[in-house]
């Protein structure tokens, strides 16, 4: 509570906060990033006793504070590498904070199961594996299995769901992954550029599903480089640059400033 330099305070106006970031700092440590990669260079570093020479620190989020309330849809914008995705992961509790804290109501979840799926398995088994990885029960998966497959449209051109995922076209794979990811209901939902998958028809369907998820979820965070989809879905925008929060306000106001800055 004792914050000597930045006494981050907020007016408690009775709204229900769902996510509070309090002076959040995230630092990545990258092995093998620094110095020359040759054996002699490595040996020289060992002789000179510079063990940290090969560990570089990347300060990805620097002192971000904000409060998100129930029912808000918040867009995150900023140029590549500004720390948007990192901030989302920190909110989800997937990246440990270097300093500061994130407080959440319930378990925020990141929309995405790509990492849990295996290309060598059939689409069918991946639906089950992905669902379990997201914390669904076997019952829930069984109930929703058909709607996941139908939503993805994988079986529109033949029985592809029983083939290994490595045989899918990139578009089909992306559609199935998205379909699995949106099968679960969330308290606080975070979406990282997920809207741009698949063909026009699928994009329409996925936007509709996102809106549905938004109405079910307490709070939605959306990271996107597409200002149109931010305008369509969000009522508040956080603008990040080099890990710092540049602006936080109503969508139009922030997007206008952002577009002026980036010259679009």
């Amino acid at each position, binding site marked *: 509570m004792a914050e000597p330099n930045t006494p981050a305070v907020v007016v408690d106006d009775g709204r*229900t906060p769902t996510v509070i970031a309090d002076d959040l700092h995230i630092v990545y*440590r990258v*092995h093998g990033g620094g110095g020359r990669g040759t054996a002699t260079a490595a040996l020289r570093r060992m002789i000179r006793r510079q063990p940290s020479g090969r560990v570089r620190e990347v300060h990805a989020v620097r002192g971000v504070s904000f409060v998100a309330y129930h029912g808000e849809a918040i867009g995150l914008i900023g140029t590549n590498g500004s720390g948007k995705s990192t901030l989302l992961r920190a909110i989800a*509790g997937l990246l440990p904070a270097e300093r500061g804290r994130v407080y959440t109501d319930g378990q925020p979840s990141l929309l995405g199961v790509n990492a849990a799926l295996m290309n060598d398995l059939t689409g069918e088994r991946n639906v089950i594996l992905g669902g379990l990885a997201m914390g669904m029960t076997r019952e829930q998966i069984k109930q929703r299995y058909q709607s996941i497959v139908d939503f993805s449209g994988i079986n529109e051109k033949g029985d592809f769901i029983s083939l290994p995922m490595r045989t899918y076209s990139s578009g089909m794979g992306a559609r199935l992954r998205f379909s699995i990811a949106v099968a679960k209901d969330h308290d606080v939902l975070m979406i990282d550029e997920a809207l741009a998958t698949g063909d026009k028809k699928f994009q329409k369907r996925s936007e509709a599903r996102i809106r549905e998820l938004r109405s079910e979820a307490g709070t939605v965070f959306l990271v996107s480089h597409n200002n149109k989809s931010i305008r369509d879905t969000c009522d508040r925008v956080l603008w990040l640059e080099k890990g710092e929060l540049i602006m936080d306000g109503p969508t139009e106001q922030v997007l206008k400033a952002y577009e002026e800055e980036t010259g679009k």
Partner: protein
Amino acid sequence: MSETTHDSAPPRDVPLAELAARHGLSVSGARPSLPQYVRQLWGRRHFIVAFSQAKLTAQYSQAKLGQLWQVFTPLLNALVYFLIFGVLLGGRGGMDNSEYIPFLVTGVFVFTFTQASVLAGVKSISGNLGLVRALHFPRASLPISFSLQQLQQLLFSMAILVVIVVSFGHMPSFAWLLVVPVLALQFVFNAGLAMVMARWGSSTPDLAQLMPFILRTWMYASGVMFPLRHMVETRANWPSWVADVLSANPAAVYMDLVRYALIDGDYRDTIPAATGLYALGWALVVGIGGFLYFWKAEERYGRG
């Protein structure tokens, strides 16, 4: 709807931490308490099983012989050891083929179970950072799941082992049932060790390069392809306490117990009675200890 304004005059400006406390928000990414963690892990049991089976299926799906490699790989290993230790170096310590071949194959299969769990454990966090950074689940699911994958792999091998043991004239008896609790204890031991390795491997990726050498040393020190006591006392002429210490190591303990259960012969009589207690002790100490050690760093996995 929120019951936050019931105290007479709420202060207008509230520090964020106090706002969080007032509305009952919890710190994201904090380590859960031990009972909570165990509950979460139990809640993910279906994921743990499904993940291990998926890994097992995916492992050989590109090979033409497919899942048959699950059995061929350990068998080919055993064949190489037979040629080198059984035929060339004379490390069989007076056993004839009908005892030595089941002895060797049992040793190779049982040791491979621990070895593969450790190797997979080292990389279970560092090799699945994408998963750790994208989804929320108790991280111990990963090393446990990889150990479970190895257990299933071992069950394939056990089917072959039974054929080999019987074809060398060791008929099934009630003693065979002993294999079940022994392998269960070994699984607990392996999972615990895999969790320790997972924590080390997540902070020191170099460990993955070092492990094969450590594991090979461990294999030679455990008497996988030769009877330890014969090698240490007769061949090397070392004092007998060296053999006592070596045969109390967990790998040797689990191998000897499976051999004790399956193979009749002179080797069975050299296995001390305390081996069963060691098996239980190792499983409890390493299984529980490894779990606690892993849990202690739960909130730190996934950084860097």
